[in-house]
Protein backbone atom coordinates (compact mmCIF):
# COMPACT_ATOMS: atom_id res chain seq x y z
CA UNK A 1 0.00 0.00 0.00
CA UNK A 2 1.22 3.50 -0.85
CA UNK A 3 1.75 5.81 2.09
CA UNK A 4 0.51 8.83 0.17
CA UNK A 5 -1.38 8.88 -3.11
CA UNK A 6 -2.00 12.25 -4.69
CA UNK A 7 -4.72 11.97 -7.29
CA UNK A 8 -4.97 14.92 -9.65
CA UNK A 9 -4.69 17.51 -6.92
CA UNK A 10 -5.09 21.02 -8.32
CA UNK A 11 -5.18 24.50 -6.88
CA UNK A 12 -6.15 27.67 -8.69
CA UNK A 13 -6.34 31.01 -6.89
CA UNK A 14 -8.65 33.86 -7.81
CA UNK A 15 -6.70 37.09 -7.74
CA UNK A 16 -7.23 40.76 -8.52
CA UNK A 17 -9.74 43.25 -7.12
CA UNK A 18 -12.78 41.46 -8.57
CA UNK A 19 -11.11 38.05 -8.22
CA UNK A 20 -11.64 37.47 -11.93
CA UNK A 21 -8.03 36.55 -12.73
CA UNK A 22 -6.90 33.00 -12.14
CA UNK A 23 -3.47 32.03 -10.87
CA UNK A 24 -2.42 28.42 -10.99
CA UNK A 25 -0.80 27.27 -7.75
CA UNK A 26 -0.70 23.60 -8.64
CA UNK A 27 -1.50 21.85 -11.90
CA UNK A 28 -3.07 18.41 -11.75
CA UNK A 29 -0.58 16.53 -9.57
CA UNK A 30 -0.40 12.75 -9.51
CA UNK A 31 2.18 11.27 -7.19
CA UNK A 32 2.73 8.23 -5.06
CA UNK A 33 4.91 8.03 -1.97
CA UNK A 34 5.81 4.53 -0.88
CA UNK A 35 5.77 3.34 2.69
CA UNK A 36 9.00 3.71 4.68
CA UNK A 37 10.79 5.81 2.09
CA UNK A 38 12.30 9.25 2.37
CA UNK A 39 10.66 11.20 -0.38
CA UNK A 40 12.02 14.57 -1.42
CA UNK A 41 9.73 17.15 -2.93
CA UNK A 42 12.03 19.50 -4.81
CA UNK A 43 11.44 22.76 -6.53
CA UNK A 44 12.52 26.37 -6.63
CA UNK A 45 10.73 28.96 -4.51
CA UNK A 46 7.15 29.39 -5.66
CA UNK A 47 7.07 26.00 -7.38
CA UNK A 48 4.00 24.83 -5.47
CA UNK A 49 5.64 22.68 -2.78
CA UNK A 50 4.05 24.44 0.18
CA UNK A 51 0.71 24.61 -1.66
CA UNK A 52 0.82 20.82 -2.08
CA UNK A 53 1.60 20.31 1.59
CA UNK A 54 -1.14 22.71 2.66
CA UNK A 55 -3.61 20.80 0.49
CA UNK A 56 -2.51 17.50 1.99
CA UNK A 57 -2.77 18.91 5.52
CA UNK A 58 -6.29 20.19 4.87
CA UNK A 59 -5.25 23.81 5.44
CA UNK A 60 -6.61 24.81 2.07
CA UNK A 61 -9.13 23.17 -0.26
CA UNK A 62 -8.18 21.88 -3.71
CA UNK A 63 -9.85 23.17 -6.86
CA UNK A 64 -9.91 19.56 -8.07
CA UNK A 65 -8.54 16.16 -7.17
CA UNK A 66 -8.07 14.26 -3.96
CA UNK A 67 -5.50 12.29 -2.00
CA UNK A 68 -5.23 9.14 0.04
CA UNK A 69 -3.10 8.80 3.12
CA UNK A 70 -2.40 5.23 4.24
CA UNK A 71 -5.35 4.10 2.15
CA UNK A 72 -7.82 6.56 3.68
CA UNK A 73 -9.27 9.79 2.38
CA UNK A 74 -6.83 12.54 3.31
CA UNK A 75 -9.51 14.48 5.19
CA UNK A 76 -10.44 11.52 7.38
CA UNK A 77 -9.50 12.28 11.02
CA UNK A 78 -8.31 8.66 11.32
CA UNK A 79 -5.75 9.38 8.59
CA UNK A 80 -4.77 12.71 10.15
CA UNK A 81 -4.04 10.98 13.45
CA UNK A 82 -1.34 8.95 11.70
CA UNK A 83 0.60 11.87 10.23
CA UNK A 84 2.92 14.49 11.64
CA UNK A 85 3.54 17.91 10.10
CA UNK A 86 6.23 20.54 10.42
CA UNK A 87 5.24 23.76 8.63
CA UNK A 88 7.74 25.98 6.82
CA UNK A 89 9.38 28.48 9.20
CA UNK A 90 7.27 27.33 12.11
CA UNK A 91 6.05 29.76 14.73
CA UNK A 92 4.65 28.38 17.92
CA UNK A 93 2.81 29.89 20.88
CA UNK A 94 5.69 31.87 22.35
CA UNK A 95 4.11 32.16 25.80
CA UNK A 96 4.35 28.38 26.26
CA UNK A 97 7.30 26.29 27.32
CA UNK A 98 8.34 23.28 25.18
CA UNK A 99 6.80 20.97 27.76
CA UNK A 100 3.47 22.81 27.67
CA UNK A 101 3.49 23.06 23.87
CA UNK A 102 4.09 19.33 23.42
CA UNK A 103 1.45 18.55 26.02
CA UNK A 104 -1.05 20.71 24.11
CA UNK A 105 -0.29 19.15 20.72
CA UNK A 106 -0.22 15.69 22.26
CA UNK A 107 -3.72 16.20 23.64
CA UNK A 108 -4.97 17.40 20.25
CA UNK A 109 -3.47 14.29 18.66
CA UNK A 110 -5.24 12.03 21.15
CA UNK A 111 -2.14 10.94 23.10
CA UNK A 112 -3.17 9.88 26.60
CA UNK A 113 -1.95 11.85 29.63
CA UNK A 114 0.18 8.90 30.78
CA UNK A 115 1.85 8.61 27.36
CA UNK A 116 2.43 12.36 27.21
CA UNK A 117 4.11 12.29 30.61
CA UNK A 118 6.36 9.48 29.42
CA UNK A 119 7.13 10.68 25.89
CA UNK A 120 7.65 14.42 26.32
CA UNK A 121 10.83 14.31 28.46
CA UNK A 122 12.30 11.62 26.18
CA UNK A 123 11.54 13.60 23.08
CA UNK A 124 12.96 16.81 24.52
CA UNK A 125 16.09 14.87 25.39
CA UNK A 126 16.24 13.51 21.86
CA UNK A 127 16.03 16.94 20.23
CA UNK A 128 18.51 18.37 22.71
CA UNK A 129 16.09 20.64 24.54
CA UNK A 130 15.79 18.82 27.86
CA UNK A 131 17.50 21.65 29.70
CA UNK A 132 15.15 24.20 28.11
CA UNK A 133 11.95 22.32 28.96
CA UNK A 134 10.62 25.12 31.18
CA UNK A 135 11.83 28.11 29.18
CA UNK A 136 9.26 30.13 27.23
CA UNK A 137 9.52 29.70 23.47
CA UNK A 138 9.84 33.47 22.95
CA UNK A 139 13.45 33.08 24.10
CA UNK A 140 14.23 30.33 21.56
CA UNK A 141 16.51 30.67 18.53
CA UNK A 142 15.36 29.62 15.05
CA UNK A 143 17.26 26.34 15.29
CA UNK A 144 15.70 25.54 18.66
CA UNK A 145 12.22 26.33 17.29
CA UNK A 146 12.88 24.00 14.38
CA UNK A 147 13.82 21.23 16.81
CA UNK A 148 10.70 21.74 18.88
CA UNK A 149 8.79 21.79 15.58
CA UNK A 150 10.14 18.38 14.68
CA UNK A 151 9.36 17.13 18.18
CA UNK A 152 5.70 18.17 17.89
CA UNK A 153 5.51 16.48 14.49
CA UNK A 154 6.58 13.09 15.86
CA UNK A 155 5.19 13.23 19.42
CA UNK A 156 2.14 11.11 18.59
CA UNK A 157 4.35 8.56 16.81
CA UNK A 158 2.91 9.08 13.32
CA UNK A 159 3.61 6.71 10.46
CA UNK A 160 4.20 9.52 7.97
CA UNK A 161 6.01 12.75 8.73
CA UNK A 162 5.57 15.74 6.40
CA UNK A 163 8.31 18.34 6.71
CA UNK A 164 8.09 21.63 4.81
CA UNK A 165 11.59 23.02 4.22
CA UNK A 166 12.94 21.59 7.49
CA UNK A 167 16.48 22.83 6.88
CA UNK A 168 15.64 26.27 5.58
CA UNK A 169 17.44 29.13 7.33
CA UNK A 170 19.42 26.88 9.67
CA UNK A 171 23.15 27.10 10.27
CA UNK A 172 25.29 24.13 9.12
CA UNK A 173 25.32 22.55 12.57
CA UNK A 174 21.56 22.73 12.99
CA UNK A 175 21.08 21.44 9.44
CA UNK A 176 23.22 18.46 10.22
CA UNK A 177 21.18 17.75 13.37
CA UNK A 178 17.93 17.89 11.44
CA UNK A 179 19.37 15.61 8.77
CA UNK A 180 20.41 13.06 11.38
CA UNK A 181 16.99 13.26 12.97
CA UNK A 182 15.33 12.53 9.62
CA UNK A 183 17.63 9.55 9.08
CA UNK A 184 16.75 8.30 12.58
CA UNK A 185 13.06 8.51 11.77
CA UNK A 186 13.70 6.63 8.55
CA UNK A 187 15.53 3.90 10.46
CA UNK A 188 12.51 3.65 12.77
CA UNK A 189 10.45 2.78 9.71
CA UNK A 190 8.61 6.04 9.24
CA UNK A 191 7.75 7.48 5.84
CA UNK A 192 9.23 10.93 5.39
CA UNK A 193 7.86 13.40 2.87
CA UNK A 194 9.90 16.55 2.86
CA UNK A 195 10.00 19.56 0.63
CA UNK A 196 13.24 21.39 0.03
CA UNK A 197 15.14 23.49 -2.44
CA UNK A 198 18.46 22.45 -0.91
CA UNK A 199 19.55 19.72 -3.29
CA UNK A 200 22.48 18.49 -1.22
CA UNK A 201 20.04 17.55 1.54
CA UNK A 202 17.79 15.73 -0.88
CA UNK A 203 20.75 13.89 -2.40
CA UNK A 204 21.98 12.81 1.03
CA UNK A 205 18.61 11.78 2.46
CA UNK A 206 16.13 10.76 -0.18
CA UNK A 207 15.29 7.42 -1.71
CA UNK A 208 13.16 9.09 -4.33
CA UNK A 209 12.46 12.65 -5.34
CA UNK A 210 9.92 14.59 -7.36
CA UNK A 211 10.73 17.86 -9.06
CA UNK A 212 8.09 20.52 -9.20
CA UNK A 213 8.31 23.76 -11.13
CA UNK A 214 5.69 26.45 -11.71
CA UNK A 215 3.05 24.26 -10.12
CA UNK A 216 3.79 21.34 -12.42
CA UNK A 217 5.41 17.98 -11.80
CA UNK A 218 8.53 17.77 -13.97
CA UNK A 219 10.00 14.46 -12.93
CA UNK A 220 9.98 11.76 -10.32
CA UNK A 221 12.17 8.78 -9.60
CA UNK A 222 14.88 7.05 -7.59
CA UNK A 223 17.69 9.48 -6.78
CA UNK A 224 20.52 7.26 -8.06
CA UNK A 225 18.73 6.61 -11.36
CA UNK A 226 17.87 10.25 -11.89
CA UNK A 227 21.47 11.22 -11.34
CA UNK A 228 22.66 8.83 -14.04
CA UNK A 229 19.91 9.90 -16.39
CA UNK A 230 20.99 13.50 -16.06
CA UNK A 231 22.89 14.74 -19.10
CA UNK A 232 26.44 13.46 -18.49
CA UNK A 233 29.80 14.44 -19.81
CA UNK A 234 33.04 12.56 -20.36
CA UNK A 235 36.55 13.81 -19.77
CA UNK A 236 39.16 12.68 -22.33
CA UNK A 237 42.89 13.18 -21.77
CA UNK A 238 45.49 12.62 -24.52
CA UNK A 239 49.09 13.38 -25.23
CA UNK A 240 50.07 15.96 -27.81
CA UNK A 241 48.46 19.26 -28.72
CA UNK A 242 47.04 18.22 -32.06
CA UNK A 243 43.35 17.48 -32.43
CA UNK A 244 42.12 20.49 -30.45
CA UNK A 245 40.45 22.19 -33.42
CA UNK A 246 38.59 19.01 -34.36
CA UNK A 247 37.51 18.50 -30.75
CA UNK A 248 36.26 22.07 -30.52
CA UNK A 249 34.19 21.42 -33.63
CA UNK A 250 32.46 18.61 -31.66
CA UNK A 251 31.51 21.09 -28.95
CA UNK A 252 34.18 19.93 -26.51
CA UNK A 253 35.94 22.35 -24.20
CA UNK A 254 39.70 21.74 -24.37
CA UNK A 255 42.28 22.73 -21.78
CA UNK A 256 45.92 22.10 -22.82
CA UNK A 257 48.35 21.70 -19.92
CA UNK A 258 51.95 21.05 -20.86
CA UNK A 259 52.09 17.97 -23.09
CA UNK A 260 48.56 16.88 -22.20
CA UNK A 261 45.15 18.08 -23.34
CA UNK A 262 42.08 17.67 -21.16
CA UNK A 263 38.75 17.87 -23.02
CA UNK A 264 35.19 17.61 -21.75
CA UNK A 265 32.75 16.28 -24.27
CA UNK A 266 29.13 15.24 -24.09
CA UNK A 267 28.53 11.52 -23.69
CA UNK A 268 26.86 11.10 -27.09
CA UNK A 269 29.87 12.56 -28.94
CA UNK A 270 32.38 10.20 -27.25
CA UNK A 271 32.77 7.82 -30.22
CA UNK A 272 33.43 10.68 -32.62
CA UNK A 273 35.98 12.20 -30.24
CA UNK A 274 37.84 8.89 -29.91
CA UNK A 275 37.82 8.53 -33.74
CA UNK A 276 39.53 11.93 -34.04
CA UNK A 277 42.29 10.82 -31.67
CA UNK A 278 42.64 7.48 -33.47
CA UNK A 279 42.90 9.09 -36.90
CA UNK A 280 45.50 11.59 -35.69
CA UNK A 281 47.34 8.75 -33.88
CA UNK A 282 47.35 10.66 -30.62
CA UNK A 283 48.05 8.53 -27.53
CA UNK A 284 44.98 8.32 -25.30
CA UNK A 285 45.75 8.76 -21.58
CA UNK A 286 42.30 8.39 -19.99
CA UNK A 287 38.54 8.51 -20.51
CA UNK A 288 36.61 9.41 -17.34
CA UNK A 289 32.83 9.66 -17.14
CA UNK A 290 31.77 12.74 -15.18
CA UNK A 291 28.92 11.61 -12.93
CA UNK A 292 25.58 13.36 -13.19
CA UNK A 293 24.34 15.09 -10.06
CA UNK A 294 20.89 15.71 -8.70
CA UNK A 295 21.59 19.35 -9.33
CA UNK A 296 22.06 18.71 -13.03
CA UNK A 297 18.85 16.71 -13.17
CA UNK A 298 17.02 19.39 -11.19
CA UNK A 299 18.22 22.25 -13.38
CA UNK A 300 17.45 20.29 -16.52
CA UNK A 301 13.87 19.70 -15.35
CA UNK A 302 13.27 23.14 -13.95
CA UNK A 303 14.73 25.08 -16.88
CA UNK A 304 13.01 23.14 -19.63
CA UNK A 305 9.46 24.43 -19.93
CA UNK A 306 8.32 22.20 -22.77
CA UNK A 307 9.87 18.90 -21.86
CA UNK A 308 7.70 15.81 -21.74
CA UNK A 309 7.54 14.98 -18.07
CA UNK A 310 9.14 11.83 -16.81
Amino acid at each position, binding site marked *: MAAVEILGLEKTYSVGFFRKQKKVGLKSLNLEVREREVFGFLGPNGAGKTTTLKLLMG*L*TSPTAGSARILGKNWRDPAA*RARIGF*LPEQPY*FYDYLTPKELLDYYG*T*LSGVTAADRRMRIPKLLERVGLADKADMQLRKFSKGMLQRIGIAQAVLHEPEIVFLDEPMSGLDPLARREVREFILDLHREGKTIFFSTHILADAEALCDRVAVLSRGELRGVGVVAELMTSAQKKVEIVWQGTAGIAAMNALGASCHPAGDLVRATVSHDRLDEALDILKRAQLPLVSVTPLGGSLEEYFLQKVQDPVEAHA
Partner: protein
Amino acid sequence: MMRRMTAVAANTFREAVRDRVLYNLVFFVLLLVASAPLLGQISIGVQRVLLINLSLSAISIFGTIISIFLGISLVSKEIERRTLYPVLARPAGRGEFIVGKYVGLAGTLLVNTSAMTLGFYAALLLMMGGLGRADGNILIAVYFILLQFLVLIGLALLFSSFSSPLLSALFALSMFVAGWFTADLRGFAESNHGLQGWLAFASSYLIPNLASLNVITRVAHDQPIPAALVGYNTVYALSYAAATLSGAALIFSRRNLK
Protein backbone atom coordinates in the same frame (compact mmCIF):
# COMPACT_ATOMS: atom_id res chain seq x y z
CA MET B 1 -13.69 15.75 20.94
CA MET B 2 -14.34 17.25 24.39
CA ARG B 3 -10.73 16.70 25.35
CA ARG B 4 -9.49 18.58 22.31
CA MET B 5 -11.90 21.49 22.87
CA THR B 6 -10.87 21.66 26.52
CA ALA B 7 -7.21 21.74 25.48
CA VAL B 8 -7.84 24.63 23.06
CA ALA B 9 -9.87 26.46 25.74
CA ALA B 10 -7.16 25.96 28.37
CA ASN B 11 -4.52 27.21 25.96
CA THR B 12 -6.60 30.30 25.16
CA PHE B 13 -7.03 31.01 28.86
CA ARG B 14 -3.32 30.55 29.46
CA GLU B 15 -2.49 32.94 26.63
CA ALA B 16 -4.77 35.63 28.08
CA VAL B 17 -3.23 35.25 31.52
CA ARG B 18 0.37 35.24 30.26
CA ASP B 19 -0.25 38.15 27.92
CA ARG B 20 -1.30 40.08 31.04
CA VAL B 21 -4.88 40.61 29.95
CA LEU B 22 -5.98 40.31 33.56
CA TYR B 23 -3.91 43.38 34.40
CA ASN B 24 -7.10 45.35 33.82
CA LEU B 25 -8.04 44.14 37.32
CA VAL B 26 -5.35 46.46 38.67
CA PHE B 27 -6.99 49.40 36.90
CA PHE B 28 -10.32 48.37 38.37
CA VAL B 29 -8.92 48.39 41.90
CA LEU B 30 -7.23 51.74 41.26
CA LEU B 31 -10.54 53.13 40.02
CA LEU B 32 -12.30 52.03 43.20
CA VAL B 33 -9.54 53.44 45.41
CA ALA B 34 -9.48 56.73 43.51
CA SER B 35 -13.24 57.13 43.71
CA ALA B 36 -13.34 56.52 47.50
CA PRO B 37 -12.61 60.16 48.55
CA LEU B 38 -15.30 61.36 46.13
CA LEU B 39 -17.86 58.91 47.48
CA GLY B 40 -16.94 59.81 51.08
CA GLN B 41 -18.20 63.35 50.57
CA ILE B 42 -21.77 62.41 49.75
CA SER B 43 -24.65 60.94 51.75
CA ILE B 44 -24.80 57.21 52.59
CA GLY B 45 -27.74 56.33 50.26
CA VAL B 46 -26.21 58.01 47.21
CA GLN B 47 -22.80 56.55 48.01
CA ARG B 48 -24.13 53.04 47.52
CA VAL B 49 -25.93 53.87 44.26
CA LEU B 50 -22.81 55.57 42.90
CA LEU B 51 -20.53 52.73 43.90
CA ILE B 52 -22.79 50.12 42.26
CA ASN B 53 -23.17 52.17 39.08
CA LEU B 54 -19.47 52.96 38.86
CA SER B 55 -18.25 49.43 39.60
CA LEU B 56 -20.70 47.51 37.44
CA SER B 57 -20.21 49.92 34.54
CA ALA B 58 -16.45 49.45 34.86
CA ILE B 59 -16.88 45.66 34.91
CA SER B 60 -19.04 45.91 31.82
CA ILE B 61 -16.71 48.26 29.93
CA PHE B 62 -13.48 46.34 30.71
CA GLY B 63 -15.15 43.06 29.78
CA THR B 64 -16.65 44.47 26.58
CA ILE B 65 -13.24 45.70 25.44
CA ILE B 66 -11.71 42.29 26.18
CA SER B 67 -14.62 40.43 24.52
CA ILE B 68 -14.40 42.40 21.29
CA PHE B 69 -10.69 42.97 20.88
CA LEU B 70 -9.51 39.61 22.15
CA GLY B 71 -12.45 37.91 20.42
CA ILE B 72 -11.48 39.19 16.99
CA SER B 73 -7.84 38.25 17.51
CA LEU B 74 -8.60 34.70 18.67
CA VAL B 75 -8.53 33.28 15.16
CA SER B 76 -6.89 36.03 13.10
CA LYS B 77 -3.73 36.01 15.23
CA GLU B 78 -3.41 32.24 14.85
CA ILE B 79 -3.77 32.53 11.07
CA GLU B 80 -1.38 35.46 10.79
CA ARG B 81 1.30 33.77 12.92
CA ARG B 82 0.58 30.36 11.41
CA THR B 83 0.34 28.75 14.85
CA LEU B 84 -2.86 27.23 13.52
CA TYR B 85 -1.13 24.97 10.99
CA PRO B 86 0.13 22.27 13.36
CA VAL B 87 -3.25 22.36 15.13
CA LEU B 88 -5.41 21.87 12.05
CA ALA B 89 -3.07 19.25 10.56
CA ARG B 90 -4.13 17.09 13.52
CA PRO B 91 -7.45 15.29 13.87
CA ALA B 92 -8.88 18.40 15.58
CA GLY B 93 -11.80 19.78 13.56
CA ARG B 94 -12.10 23.46 12.81
CA GLY B 95 -15.44 23.63 14.64
CA GLU B 96 -13.83 22.16 17.75
CA PHE B 97 -11.11 24.78 17.50
CA ILE B 98 -13.62 27.65 17.27
CA VAL B 99 -15.68 26.35 20.21
CA GLY B 100 -12.52 25.79 22.26
CA LYS B 101 -11.35 29.33 21.58
CA TYR B 102 -14.78 30.68 22.54
CA VAL B 103 -14.88 28.74 25.80
CA GLY B 104 -11.32 29.81 26.64
CA LEU B 105 -12.10 33.51 26.28
CA ALA B 106 -15.44 33.11 28.07
CA GLY B 107 -13.54 31.42 30.92
CA THR B 108 -11.04 34.29 31.01
CA LEU B 109 -13.88 36.79 31.28
CA LEU B 110 -15.59 34.71 33.96
CA VAL B 111 -12.43 34.80 36.10
CA ASN B 112 -11.92 38.50 35.34
CA THR B 113 -15.51 39.44 36.17
CA SER B 114 -15.53 37.27 39.30
CA ALA B 115 -12.38 38.95 40.61
CA MET B 116 -13.81 42.41 39.90
CA THR B 117 -17.10 41.47 41.57
CA LEU B 118 -15.24 40.32 44.66
CA GLY B 119 -13.36 43.64 44.69
CA PHE B 120 -16.62 45.51 44.33
CA TYR B 121 -18.25 43.62 47.23
CA ALA B 122 -15.20 44.27 49.39
CA ALA B 123 -15.49 48.00 48.64
CA LEU B 124 -19.23 47.90 49.36
CA LEU B 125 -18.63 46.10 52.65
CA LEU B 126 -16.05 48.68 53.70
CA MET B 127 -18.26 51.58 52.77
CA MET B 128 -21.55 50.34 54.23
CA GLY B 129 -20.08 48.42 57.16
CA GLY B 130 -22.04 45.30 56.16
CA LEU B 131 -23.99 43.69 53.34
CA GLY B 132 -27.79 43.60 53.11
CA ARG B 133 -30.13 41.19 51.37
CA ALA B 134 -30.65 43.64 48.50
CA ASP B 135 -26.94 43.50 47.77
CA GLY B 136 -27.37 39.92 46.63
CA ASN B 137 -29.50 41.23 43.73
CA ILE B 138 -26.41 42.90 42.32
CA LEU B 139 -25.20 39.42 41.32
CA ILE B 140 -28.06 39.25 38.82
CA ALA B 141 -26.70 42.38 37.12
CA VAL B 142 -23.24 40.80 37.05
CA TYR B 143 -24.74 37.62 35.58
CA PHE B 144 -26.39 39.69 32.83
CA ILE B 145 -23.08 41.41 32.12
CA LEU B 146 -21.52 37.96 31.67
CA LEU B 147 -24.32 37.02 29.27
CA GLN B 148 -23.53 40.19 27.33
CA PHE B 149 -19.89 39.07 27.06
CA LEU B 150 -20.99 35.68 25.70
CA VAL B 151 -22.96 37.44 22.96
CA LEU B 152 -20.10 39.80 22.12
CA ILE B 153 -17.43 37.07 21.94
CA GLY B 154 -19.68 35.14 19.56
CA LEU B 155 -20.11 38.21 17.35
CA ALA B 156 -16.38 38.98 17.39
CA LEU B 157 -15.58 35.39 16.39
CA LEU B 158 -18.22 35.42 13.66
CA PHE B 159 -16.86 38.59 12.07
CA SER B 160 -13.25 37.52 12.37
CA SER B 161 -14.03 34.22 10.64
CA PHE B 162 -14.47 36.04 7.32
CA SER B 163 -13.03 39.55 7.57
CA SER B 164 -9.86 41.36 8.58
CA PRO B 165 -9.22 42.23 12.26
CA LEU B 166 -9.86 45.94 11.59
CA LEU B 167 -13.19 45.34 9.87
CA SER B 168 -14.15 42.75 12.48
CA ALA B 169 -13.54 45.29 15.24
CA LEU B 170 -15.59 47.86 13.37
CA PHE B 171 -18.49 45.44 12.80
CA ALA B 172 -18.46 44.16 16.39
CA LEU B 173 -18.31 47.67 17.87
CA SER B 174 -21.15 48.78 15.59
CA MET B 175 -23.27 45.84 16.74
CA PHE B 176 -22.41 46.65 20.35
CA VAL B 177 -23.54 50.28 19.98
CA ALA B 178 -26.63 49.36 17.95
CA GLY B 179 -27.46 46.70 20.54
CA TRP B 180 -28.52 49.42 22.97
CA PHE B 181 -31.13 50.75 20.56
CA THR B 182 -32.98 47.62 19.40
CA ALA B 183 -36.17 48.76 21.14
CA ASP B 184 -36.04 52.04 19.20
CA LEU B 185 -35.48 50.09 15.99
CA ARG B 186 -38.56 48.00 16.70
CA GLY B 187 -40.56 51.15 17.34
CA PHE B 188 -39.29 52.57 14.05
CA ALA B 189 -40.22 49.34 12.25
CA GLU B 190 -43.79 49.50 13.62
CA SER B 191 -44.27 53.07 12.49
CA ASN B 192 -42.88 52.49 8.99
CA HIS B 193 -44.08 50.29 6.17
CA GLY B 194 -42.53 48.87 3.04
CA LEU B 195 -38.85 48.07 2.60
CA GLN B 196 -37.73 50.59 5.22
CA GLY B 197 -39.97 49.08 7.87
CA TRP B 198 -39.06 45.57 6.92
CA LEU B 199 -35.32 46.33 7.08
CA ALA B 200 -35.69 47.95 10.50
CA PHE B 201 -37.71 44.97 11.70
CA ALA B 202 -35.14 42.43 10.45
CA SER B 203 -32.24 44.47 11.88
CA SER B 204 -33.90 44.71 15.28
CA TYR B 205 -33.81 40.92 15.50
CA LEU B 206 -30.34 40.45 14.00
CA ILE B 207 -28.74 43.00 16.30
CA PRO B 208 -28.32 41.68 19.87
CA ASN B 209 -30.67 43.22 22.38
CA LEU B 210 -28.06 44.40 24.85
CA ALA B 211 -30.34 46.92 26.54
CA SER B 212 -32.37 44.11 28.11
CA LEU B 213 -29.13 42.73 29.59
CA ASN B 214 -28.46 45.96 31.45
CA VAL B 215 -30.10 46.16 34.88
CA ILE B 216 -27.34 48.11 36.64
CA THR B 217 -29.52 51.13 37.47
CA ARG B 218 -32.35 48.88 38.65
CA VAL B 219 -30.19 46.93 41.11
CA ALA B 220 -28.55 50.16 42.28
CA HIS B 221 -32.00 51.41 43.28
CA ASP B 222 -33.02 48.10 44.84
CA GLN B 223 -35.69 47.45 42.23
CA PRO B 224 -36.52 43.74 41.97
CA ILE B 225 -35.50 41.79 38.87
CA PRO B 226 -38.29 39.42 37.76
CA ALA B 227 -37.31 35.76 37.49
CA ALA B 228 -38.90 35.71 34.03
CA LEU B 229 -36.39 38.30 32.83
CA VAL B 230 -33.53 36.16 34.14
CA GLY B 231 -34.92 33.17 32.25
CA TYR B 232 -35.62 35.16 29.08
CA ASN B 233 -32.18 36.79 29.05
CA THR B 234 -30.44 33.46 29.68
CA VAL B 235 -32.22 31.71 26.81
CA TYR B 236 -31.83 34.73 24.53
CA ALA B 237 -28.10 35.25 25.14
CA LEU B 238 -27.22 31.55 24.93
CA SER B 239 -29.23 31.13 21.71
CA TYR B 240 -27.68 34.23 20.19
CA ALA B 241 -24.18 33.08 21.15
CA ALA B 242 -24.85 29.57 19.80
CA ALA B 243 -26.08 31.00 16.49
CA THR B 244 -23.06 33.28 16.03
CA LEU B 245 -20.70 30.49 17.07
CA SER B 246 -22.27 28.06 14.59
CA GLY B 247 -21.95 30.69 11.87
CA ALA B 248 -18.31 31.27 12.77
CA ALA B 249 -17.56 27.53 12.76
CA LEU B 250 -19.33 27.04 9.42
CA ILE B 251 -17.51 29.91 7.71
CA PHE B 252 -14.15 29.00 9.24
CA SER B 253 -14.46 25.35 8.18
CA ARG B 254 -14.59 26.51 4.53
CA ARG B 255 -11.84 29.06 4.81
CA ASN B 256 -8.59 28.60 2.90
CA LEU B 257 -5.56 29.45 5.00
CA LYS B 258 -2.88 31.52 3.29
